[in-house]
């Protein structure tokens, strides 16, 4: 055994991921019925919930349509943009 030994200590730090919001923004082109249809198709929401979110988009200019882990949020944003909805991704506060 040598005179000097090296002590290696590892420390695990675990932190919860910050949730991310999937946000649909209003635009003058997409029809309200289409927005509702896309929300039911992409998220599996029932028509009532999808309609409430669509009305939020229409009246308030935006609606948080889903919140959760980043990877899944990115998937949903890609799906919604693929349906031509004006969709963004933002950190949940």
């Amino acid at each position, binding site marked *: 055994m040598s005179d000097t030994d090296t002590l290696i200590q590892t420390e695990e730090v675990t932190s919860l991921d910050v949730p991310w919001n999937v946000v649909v923004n209003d635009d003058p*082109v997409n029809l309200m019925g*289409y927005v509702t*249809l896309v929300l039911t198709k992409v998220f599996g929401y029932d028509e009532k919930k999808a309609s409430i979110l669509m009305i939020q988009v229409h009246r308030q200019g935006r609606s948080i349509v889903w919140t959760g882990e980043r990877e899944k949020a*990115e998937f949903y944003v*890609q799906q919604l*943009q693929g349906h*031509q909805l*004006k*969709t*963004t991704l933002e950190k949940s506060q």
Partner: protein
Amino acid sequence: MPTLEGGLRIDTENFNDWGILRSIVVDANDATTHDLASRMGALLSEEAGGEDWQEYIVPDLREGFHDELAQVGAAIESAIHIADSGPGPIWINRDEVFPWYSALNQARLALEERYHFGPAETISLEGNDPVRRSAFMRSKFYCAIQCLLLDHVMGPSKAPQQNP
């Protein structure tokens, strides 16, 4: 006109009507504005990974939009060929409805990007610019077809019920 199979049939009366249908693809591919996929990509902030989005996701979006336009463009050209450029029908079946809706939407989004018509209730055609007026009428026509597709073709249980 809705069909018994749950689709939609558009009857053209002359060559000009085919020209209007062809304009769906022309409008959607408007080269004077950034393409739709790029505009979608630009919506993501740097914090949300906008740079990676442009690099990895936008090309997929672009390809998807392009494929839908190509499918609709081919359907229109095929119908024109069958009708020998004269009066004739074109069918939008249920399994083709999303590409059709998408193509019409791409055209309307491109027209909106270029002319900024705004929400339907506030549209103004001041100045009587004939190019803008024509674009507005096309946008209204595309929107009318989209409404028919939504009402009669898209979504569940739109096909007529079969008798047992």
